[in-house]
């Protein structure tokens, strides 16, 4: 090991910023953060059994969650922990300060610095994925085509004008603008392209419209045209939640319509006629138009002998874009990557399909700008370790050679 290139006076008092820098860049903090991340992963793995994967991921690793209290078997564990996102952010800072800035420089340490840069790249990729990625699913039947993915969780309100029986471009009110509208809160939405506005309130994360003759309201719920929204407990599988809310049309003279229900569980939209123009208002999971169409030519599911455990799902598709076609096979562990989108073979249906039944394939669609960053970071880390190894080997061989010559 070389002597430090910057000699310091022994026992020189360290300034406060210096001490902070030493802590933030030290091995101690790195060790604590790595142990913390391991602990968080362990707790989250146990908790998601009871509480579901998505809510657990949100609790442990979402950026808005700073401190968490783990739960096990429905009981809270009184051990406040820094959340995974912020532990990772602190680890990123630690690596930059300690692994790149503070670390000894020189060609003998180049390999270590390269490896640290690789890990920094991976942590940055995790941050990019959290803030900028989109995920959804696309279900396509055999001999059918789709150009749309559907978000797993986000419910939106959509407004469209109908001309000649068809929807025009659709205006979208995003989930983040309505999912806080519970407990009496309402919000008005101005729609520049339309001769009316909307007022929305009474949002419920998981609800079912129920007829008042079928089951009487028990909590003085708002009724609309003989129905009300019956709140349901959150589903363990968060994708199965169906949101609902109440809305009113605000006309140009400021008057408001009677309330009507918008529900993810509804079969048809709410319709409105104004001055010979027809509009629809609907609530559904956010649709994500794709830049190309996927036609499912053939779907094959194979199972382990004597079981219903799948061994292989294979989707043979045609990707159609601006008149050109490409044949692609998508199967487990072999996704299709195209134009920044990744299509993974996720599942199939209908459940328990008999042999010969018409099937559909379900793809998970992901747009993640940092999709390949973990892979690239591994290459960088591996290269850094190779450089470290070769450096050490070269030093060892050089020292051995000099020793041999001295004895000659």
């Amino acid at each position, binding site marked *: 090991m070389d002597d430090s290139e910057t000699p310091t006076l022994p026992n020189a008092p360290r300034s406060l910023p210096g001490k902070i820098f030493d802590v933030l860049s030290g091995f101690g903090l790195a060790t604590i953060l790595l142990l913390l991340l391991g602990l968080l992963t362990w707790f989250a793995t146990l908790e998601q059994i009871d509480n579901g994967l998505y809510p657990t991921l949100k609790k442990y690793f979402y950026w*808005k969650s*700073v*401190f968490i209290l783990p739960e096990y078997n429905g009981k809270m564990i009184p051990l406040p922990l820094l959340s995974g996102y912020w532990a990772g952010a602190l680890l990123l800072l630690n690596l930059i300060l300690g692994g790149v800035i503070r670390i000894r420089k020189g060609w003998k340490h180049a390999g270590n610095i390269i490896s640290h840069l690789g890990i920094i790249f991976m942590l940055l990729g995790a941050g990019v994925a959290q803030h900028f990625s989109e995920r959804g699913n696309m279900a396509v039947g055999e001999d059918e*085509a*789709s*150009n*749309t993915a*559907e978000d797993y969780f986000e419910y939106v309100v959509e407004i*469209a004008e*109908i001309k000649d*029986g*068809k*929807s*025009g*471009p*659709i*205006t*979208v*009110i*995003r989930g983040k*603008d309505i999912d*806080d509208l519970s407990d009496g809160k309402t*919000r*008005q*939405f*101005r*729609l*520049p392209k339309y001769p009316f506005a909307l007022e929305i309130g009474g949002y419920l994360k998981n609800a079912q*419209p129920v*007829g008042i*003759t*079928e089951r009487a309201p028990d909590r003085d719920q708002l009724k*609309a*045209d*003989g*129905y009300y929204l019956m709140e349901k407990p959150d589903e363990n599988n968060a994708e199965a939640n169906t949101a609902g809310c109440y809305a009113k049309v605000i006309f140009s003279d400021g008057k408001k319509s009677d309330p009507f*229900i918008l*529900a993810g*569980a*509804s*079969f*048809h*939209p*709410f*319709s409105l*006629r104004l001055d010979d123009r*027809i509009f*629809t208002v*609907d609530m559904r999971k956010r*649709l994500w*138009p794709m830049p190309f*169409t996927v036609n499912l030519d053939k779907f094959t599911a194979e199972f382990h002998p004597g079981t219903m455990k799948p061994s292989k799902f294979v989707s043979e598709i045609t990707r159609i874009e601006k008149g050109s076609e490409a044949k692609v096979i998508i199967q487990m562990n072999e996704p299709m990557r195209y134009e920044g989108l990744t299509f993974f073979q996720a599942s199939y249906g209908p459940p328990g399909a008999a042999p010969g039944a018409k099937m559909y394939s379900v793809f998970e669609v992901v747009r993640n700008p940092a999709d390949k960053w973990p892979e690239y970071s591994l290459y960088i880390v591996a290269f850094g370790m190779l450089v470290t190894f070769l450096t050490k080997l070269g030093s060892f061989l050089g020292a051995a050679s000099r020793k041999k010559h001295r004895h000659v």
Partner: protein
Amino acid sequence: MFSSCEKKKEVVVTETRATTTRDQAPKLFATSDERFRDAKPSPVKGDTPEGWLSLPASQFRLLNYRFGESGMGEVWVSLANGTVLDNVNRWLGQFTATKLDSAGLEKLPPATIAGTTGKWVEAAGDYVGGMGAEPKPGFALAGVVTSINGQILTLKMVGPKAEVEAAKPVLETFAKSLRMAE
């Protein structure tokens, strides 16, 4: 640590999306029944007995009625999953009655329903319906389960014991009047 900012009372919406293969010609001016029950014509029809109150169909009840003076008597017709035995045992389970095996099922009396022969089922006691409902003491059940066209058709009557006893002959007649829609 992060307190949420007060969100605006009014938002101007500018986000749009293009139509997709999912945006088929929408059903315009659908009624609430159509929007929330997708009320299509029932695949099963029947002659409503005198004195029974006909109610709107629901997700699980193709034909839906109330009967009896207490207002607690219910009759409904459904298409179910599983087998005849599964459904019979599910009903018996709601009264904590002993479940049957195939041999026990064969011994149940036959009943005519929708042009086929099904099994007549009865039970009595504390009724625990689905979805975490509170037990209802002093209730009874009468009904018919049959397999028709590859589906399980059920006709189920539940209510206070005395009212169910009195309504059994009417139920039997109603079962015979059921017919599958063409």
